[in-house]
């Protein structure tokens, strides 16, 4: 079994440790005996979405996001099809804004229009720790936000329900977009490494989509779990 991963715009959407997520997938898939092929693709490349099982895009500066927006717009049909077919998308930070109707910054820009929401990039930034729940796994999700975008008209199913932190807009508890195997969130950085249960969940889903009878080996996530527990413990002490 080989899992093909595309890390898109790795040299533009690389602001807050985004490369950690792909590292996590690669290592954990390989530990299950699965081959992993990663293509790092960007502005000079043509992207064949149908070639991949898993697409990753991370967070970038507002300026880099605009460069990427121009490049990704022609792929709307292919991306829509890939999401409908149940291909995996992990989209972190402001990369999620690419998938809405429009992004309003100093000007209004048309986005992929795959989901309903619109984004306005504010002058302030939403910064802070996040603790959230999800229906996908039992343990809470931990992470961090650092963004200027605020969404409105969100009609899609949220990925997370925020307990601490900010949802897709201030005073909103819903955060992220979940549709089929599209997992999009404003959380930044290596969220798969910081949330070993979520990593395990995704790895299992990816493999089972290819082989529903796959026999999983035990996952070795001791360090990751300790780091996670430390965060939870500190979080409980603080609150």
């Amino acid at each position: 079994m080989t899992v093909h991963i595309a890390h898109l715009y790795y040299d533009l959407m690389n602001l807050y440790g985004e490369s950690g997520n792909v590292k996590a997938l690669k290592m954990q898939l390989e530990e299950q005996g699965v081959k992993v092929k990663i293509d790092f693709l960007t502005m000079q490349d043509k992207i064949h979405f149908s070639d991949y099982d898993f697409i990753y895009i991370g967070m970038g500066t507002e300026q880099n996001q605009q460069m990427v927006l121009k490049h990704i717009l022609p792929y709307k049909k292919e991306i829509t099809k890939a999401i409908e077919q149940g291909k995996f998308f992990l989209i972190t930070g402001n990369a999620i804004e690419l998938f809405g109707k429009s992004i309003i910054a100093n000007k209004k820009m048309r986005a992929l229009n795959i989901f309903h929401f619109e984004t306005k990039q504010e002058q302030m930034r939403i910064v802070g720790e996040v603790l959230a729940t999800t229906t996908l796994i039992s343990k809470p999700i931990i992470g961090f936000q650092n963004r200027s975008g605020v969404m409105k008209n969100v009609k899609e199913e949220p990925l997370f329900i925020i307990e601490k932190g900010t949802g897709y807009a201030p005073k909103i508890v819903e955060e992220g977009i979940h549709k089929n195997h599209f997992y999009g969130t404003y959380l930044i950085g290596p969220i798969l490494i910081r949330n070993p249960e979520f990593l395990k969940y995704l790895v299992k889903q990816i493999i089972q989509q290819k082989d529903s009878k796959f026999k999983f080996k035990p996952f070795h996530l001791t360090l990751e779990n300790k780091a996670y527990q430390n965060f939870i413990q500190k979080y409980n002490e603080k609150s």
Partner: protein
Amino acid sequence: MYHILCIILGKVIVLIGKICKRGSSLPGLIVLKLDKHILESFQLPKLVIAVTGSSGKGSISTLIAKILTNQNYTVAHNKVGSNLTPGIVTLLLEHSSLLGKIKTDAIVYEIDERYAKYVFDAITPNYVVISNISRDQPPRQGHFDLVFEEIQKAITPSMHLILNADDPYLQKFALNHHGPITYYSIEKNQYSYTKNKFMNLNLNYCPKCNQKLEYNYYNFENIGDYHCSSCQFQKPKADTIITKIDYTHYKIVIDGTYTIELPHLILYDVYNTLAAFTITSLIGLQKEKICDTLSHIHKNKKLFHVFTYHDRIVTVLNNKNENSSTFNQSLLYVSRYKEEKTIVIGWKEISRRYQFDDLSWLYDIDFELLNKLNVHKFVCVGIHRYDIATRLKYAGIDEKTITVFDTIEESTNYIQQKTKGNIYAILNFDYVEPFQQAMKESDAS
């Protein structure tokens, strides 16, 4: 008249502060409360040099102030850390007459990259050194493009910019600037490399036309000899150039002629030294004397320190948390040494400013540089020891070589008893002294 009263009051508070040996920003803070336009009340000397950027501004401004002092200038200079508006006001109060006239020949001030726009209007520098704009304190700064915009707001055509020619990101200032610019550069040397070693660079595309940048060589991250693959954009010709770096003898040679002995071996020290040389020679100071001053500045123990523990060489590398570039420089440094070694990584807290557990920056650091080195043990220490250990694991380092400790004392006991080889401690500044102390105390006993 009110301004003058405020200045007099400010000077009294400075005096009281000195008697009580208290803080540096407080007088400025109080006076700013009384008169928010106080900065405009000072009459400046002919020479005003400002230094800003993500890192190095404290070191560079200190070097410039020392060089000037050694060439008979009287200098007003803010101490490291007092680099926000109140710190600048205090500095001016300390050095002004009762009427607000600055009594020194020159002002050299480091200014926080987000505060330049509040200060430059009134305390307008003739020269502005912008050291770099790197990934630094994301929860506070957002990101480097926002920092660039903040500094850009403060720059006017009357200011003479001093920039690192090797850093394409700083060229964004040059593209907008209508005043003079002087550049410095480190020529290709034995430590330059041609294949990029760092995954998460701030700028990969031409700031003029958005096409991919290409490199003849790199000195570090995206610092090197670059040009655009499409337009005319390229590394500008530098006015001051390091033509030789000799790390074994702790020496650099500028423009083929001027030799400076360096106490530090890290690239940022070399660039900081070069920046100070460039600005001071630009204003006409004697170059031999500049070299003399720079060569004799004592080792800053806090920045970088080497000592021995039994027969093992201990190298303590000072880093800034939430600033991946400082860690990357340390890793590049360590990766040059091939002998068996033990590597220590840790910190007491991520930030003194806030209590966030943002660890994303750990993944902007290329710990992958360590995974083919001859390392006996990796020692992760402090509150985020498991996060550090996890990061090392995903860099491809064998988990069996990684150990974790809660405290410096536990870690140094282990290092002394159970590990082999020279010791490289890659620490946030808050662990530098505790680590050195713990290592040295047990050496003495």
